[in-house]
């Protein structure tokens, strides 16, 4: 069909732009085993590096015997802190303003801490060498309980911080204290609580878990001594930040460092930070002059890389007798392990936990967070959520249910009475956030109607009666969760990581024959950016998505960005993409006007072309304009068709959702069946519904794992539990239920295409829905709150404590 005759609709379809269920371009290589992950890299002369790790949770190192290892044929080097000290590399800065030992210096602070780095010709020899290294320890008392970290006689953990009464975030009040962070109105909150008709208080612990992506962390570091150029391929969710940090640490200038994130097998926050393995590989490559690969095992990943959560929260919520909330107070004890390696924007040592007023109109609130050191792995990171948002959401969603119990109100009803109303947006929360948009009641109504909430509660009443009569040993639970996330970090004025503002970027170049390449500062780990960002561009510049290559991850070519985590890609880089696309279109308009010999303002945009207003048969397609950009631009204009946008978002975005979980708890065994799970998400403009659905499925499955069995626990000696997949709960297809997904669409008013981001919402909303459901199953028997994970034995213990099992 000729260019003129095709309808706008047909042309729109051809673009596969916004809203299309475009199939993924990534799938071609992944389904044929041609993905390119770090461990696939094989370079000439490449050596393999591996760690000797601490047996103990807290101990002095008395000696390290390397001779037997060094004598093993094929072993090239063994690095310890002694070798790194002269280079001042035995400690490295963390993203939270602390320092972390790269190799343990005289002392180990968590089980699995790196003590020595072996470099050998292959991984088998490296493993043999690791086994030959003998470390002599003097064991010290360990702290595994953050509530004991600040006891007067608590063991000193951080000898390197001795005497330092100020940390990166202010005063330290104890040798194991890291920071106190405070926001809100203490006085108004105290007085509101004192005056309140009802106050519900509860301690809510969100257990330590781990993002556990299927691919572990790793890198290949290659120092080219001749050119003085360092290249590092690695599992980096923020390649540019890694480049800057690597330059600051190593002294190699940034223009001589190239960081490449190839295909990454899942990130979920685990791959944001810088790990000792990266530093040691770089040092080893510099020392040996050949590439050095480091790939950790699964047990190393769970033992030593960034964990998530470990937030011990106490909440007080004040309300009227009718259930209208008047105040919220929260104190958090944050367990950061041995080093504060949290990946948060600098000004937010507790991330965005202050979103803990949630989706509710709460007039006054006060929050304090105390971070402490313990003998556990350092961290933590935002595991499939924005910074500390799942902790905040879990906290408020449980507190709402606790309040509902106290008032004997239905959990959906109490939410209805307190949800922020549509007319209140943009909404200024009591803890300082401006929520951009939301239509909460519509979403709640839709969710409750779809699941027939009233019918479910009727069924539950019948079930409870039958249970009391001894006719069944199963208790039905219904969990409601209405979350608001804060994602898309973020405006430079308040969001930076180590001083790097959290903008993001897109650079586009259109080729003469009408196709294009776009490079972004983000990096997909499965989210499908190569597919979806091309869709954004296709809608902006009228070139089919299939003709747009999207690249990320190579710092030599990609514009600077802060990477992908905390659902920030669509809100920030997606915005940059749209803005860069608009710059392209603006230039294209001028070229088209010149070609058509009209004024710019005489043209209007029509899917993939500019046409003359009132004379639509006169038009120029983007393909024609692209070619003209290379030979026929207006006088005074530069040739070429390219644009770059560095986007500083004016605000975060606030995706939200209404989830309902229906469970059946078997009291005799503690086994919980997930009968039904309904998830309604509002992520604003929906770029690719197929990908959104996939993200929701995946996030809900991670939420299921966290709520129903996942944890990293430590005993009083600092021994880590659940650090292999035998015990660390990852559900199989059998444990995972069928997920029902739904949506409403409330565009973000400040985002160029109204999109909010969605990748992590399901983990945030899902955890609360599951936990509320299990708690709900026992609520009529007096249960107020039982903590996650809701694994068999804990659920049984709850049932037993309520007298339900003999």
């Amino acid at each position, binding site marked *: 069909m000729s260019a003129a005759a095709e309808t706008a609709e047909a042309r729109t379809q051809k673009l596969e732009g916004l809203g299309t269920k475009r199939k993924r371009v*990534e799938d071609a290589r992944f389904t044929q085993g041609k993905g390119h992950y770090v461990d696939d890299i094989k370079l000439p002369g490449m050596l393999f590096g591996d760690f000797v790790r601490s047996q103990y949770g807290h101990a002095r190192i008395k000696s390290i015997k390397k001779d037997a290892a060094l004598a093993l044929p094929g072993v090239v080097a063994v690095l310890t802190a002694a070798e790194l000290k002269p280079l001042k590399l035995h400690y490295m800065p963390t993203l939270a303003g602390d320092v972390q030992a790269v190799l343990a210096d005289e002392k180990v602070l968590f089980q699995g801490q790196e003590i020595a780095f072996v470099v050998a010709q292959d*991984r088998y020899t490296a493993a043999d060498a690791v086994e030959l290294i003998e470390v002599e320890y003097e064991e010290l008392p360990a702290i595994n309980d953050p509530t004991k970290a600040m006891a007067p006689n608590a063991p000193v953990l951080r000898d390197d911080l001795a005497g330092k009464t100020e940390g990166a975030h202010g005063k330290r009040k104890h040798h194991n204290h890291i920071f106190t962070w405070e926001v809100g109105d203490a006085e108004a909150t105290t007085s509101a609580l004192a005056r309140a008709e009802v106050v519900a208080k509860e301690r809510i612990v969100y257990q330590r878990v781990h993002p556990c992506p299927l*691919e572990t962390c790793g890198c290949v570091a290659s120092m080219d001594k001749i050119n003085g150029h360092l290249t590092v391929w690695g599992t980096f969710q923020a390649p540019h930040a890694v480049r800057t940090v690597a330059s600051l640490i190593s002294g190699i200038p940034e223009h001589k460092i190239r960081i490449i994130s190839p295909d990454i097998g899942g990130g979920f926050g685990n791959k944001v930070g810088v790990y000792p393995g990266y530093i040691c590989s770089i040092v080893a490559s510099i020392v040996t002059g050949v590439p050095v690969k480091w790939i950790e095992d699964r047990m190393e990943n769970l033992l030593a890389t960034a964990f998530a959560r470990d937030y011990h929260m106490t909440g007080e919520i004040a309300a009227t007798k009718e259930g209208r909330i008047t105040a919220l107070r929260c104190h958090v004890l944050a367990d950061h392990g041995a080093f504060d390696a949290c990946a948060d924007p600098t000004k937010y040592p507790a991330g965005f936990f202050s979103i803990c007023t949630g989706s509710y109109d709460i007039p006054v609130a006060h929050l304090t967070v105390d971070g402490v050191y313990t003998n556990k792995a350092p961290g933590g990171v935002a595991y499939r959520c924005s910074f500390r948002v799942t902790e905040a959401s879990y906290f408020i969603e449980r507190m709402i249910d606790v309040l509902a119990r106290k008032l004997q109100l239905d959990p959906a009803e109490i939410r209805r009475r307190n949800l922020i109303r549509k007319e209140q947006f943009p909404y200024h929360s009591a803890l300082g956030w401006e929520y951009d948009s939301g239509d909460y009641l519509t979403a709640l109504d839709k969710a409750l109607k779809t699941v027939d909430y009233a019918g479910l509660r009727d069924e539950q009443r019948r079930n409870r009666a039958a249970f009391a009569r001894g006719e069944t040993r199963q208790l039905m639970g219904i969990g409601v969760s209405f979350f608001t996330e804060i994602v898309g970090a973020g405006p430079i004025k308040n969001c930076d990581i180590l001083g790097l503002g959290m903008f993001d970027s897109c650079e586009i170049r259109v080729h003469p024959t009408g196709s294009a390449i776009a490079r972004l500062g983000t990096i997909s780990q499965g989210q499908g950016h190569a597919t979806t960002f091309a869709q954004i561009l296709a809608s902006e510049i009228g070139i089919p998505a299939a003709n747009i290559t999207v690249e990320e991850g190579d710092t030599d070519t990609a514009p600077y960005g802060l990477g992908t985590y905390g659902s920030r890609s669509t809100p920030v880089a997606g915005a940059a993409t749209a803005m860069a696309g608009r710059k392209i279109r603006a230039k294209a308009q001028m070229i088209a006007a010149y070609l058509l010999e009209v004024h710019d303002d005489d043209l209007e945009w029509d899917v993939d072309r500019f046409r003359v207003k009132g004379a639509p048969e006169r038009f120029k397609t983007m393909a024609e304009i692209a070619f003209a950009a290379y030979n026929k631009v207006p006088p005074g204009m530069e040739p070429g068709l390219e644009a770059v946008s560095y986007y500083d978002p004016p605000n975060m975005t606030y995706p939200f959702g209404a989830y309902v979980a229906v469970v059946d708890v078997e009291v005799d065994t503690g086994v919980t069946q997930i009968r039904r799970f309904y998830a309604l998400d509002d992520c604003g403009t929906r770029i690719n519904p197929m990908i959104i659905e996939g993200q929701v499925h995946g996030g809900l499955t991670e939420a299921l794992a966290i709520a129903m069995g996942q944890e990293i626990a430590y005993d009083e000696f600092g021994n880590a539990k659940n650090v292999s997949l035998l015990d660390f709960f990852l559900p199989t297809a059998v444990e995972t239920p069928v997920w029902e997904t739904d949506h409403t669409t409330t565009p973000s008013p400040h985002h160029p295409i109204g999109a909010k981001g969605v990748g992590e919402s399901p983990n945030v909303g899902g955890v609360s829905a599951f936990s509320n459901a299990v708690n709900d199953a026992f609520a009529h028997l007096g249960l107020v709150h039982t903590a996650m994970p809701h694994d068999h034995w804990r659920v049984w213990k709850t049932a037993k404590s309520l007298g339900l099992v003999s």
Partner: protein
Amino acid sequence: MTKMHIKLTVNGRAVETLAEPRMLLIHVLREELSLTGPHIGCDTSHCGACTVDLNGKSVKSCTVFAAQANGATILTIEGMAAADGTLHPLQEAFREHHGLQCGFCTPGMITRAYRLLQENPNPSEAEIRAGISGNLCRCTGYQNIVKAIRAAAERMSTSKEAAE
């Protein structure tokens, strides 16, 4: 310890390599034979990312010594497509139904699904879920994987019927 001579038929081709007896099949495939499709995701034989088809069985290649596989016939993800590049119905179905995201579990998952459908050409949803219970995925929540396998099964039985 001295290396052994290992002979395998991999994806239809006879290959030979030298490896220590203790070398795991997954390492021989990935490092000696440069077949980096199968991946390593755990230490304890749980995740299934290393799954290959060995002598007609789905096998976790991280729990097999190359020495044990000596003489075996092996199919990996790299051998699923036809010689002329035509994708296997499973590969197409995974793309069609968004059965993958980061791609790390995908080679093992598809290779396992292949054998599952050989053994049970018309599996129910429950049978598919049980059939892939040795393959973990962190991204997809399995739902679209199950859909993809179901779709491939239908397509394969239709073309089988057409051929008969």
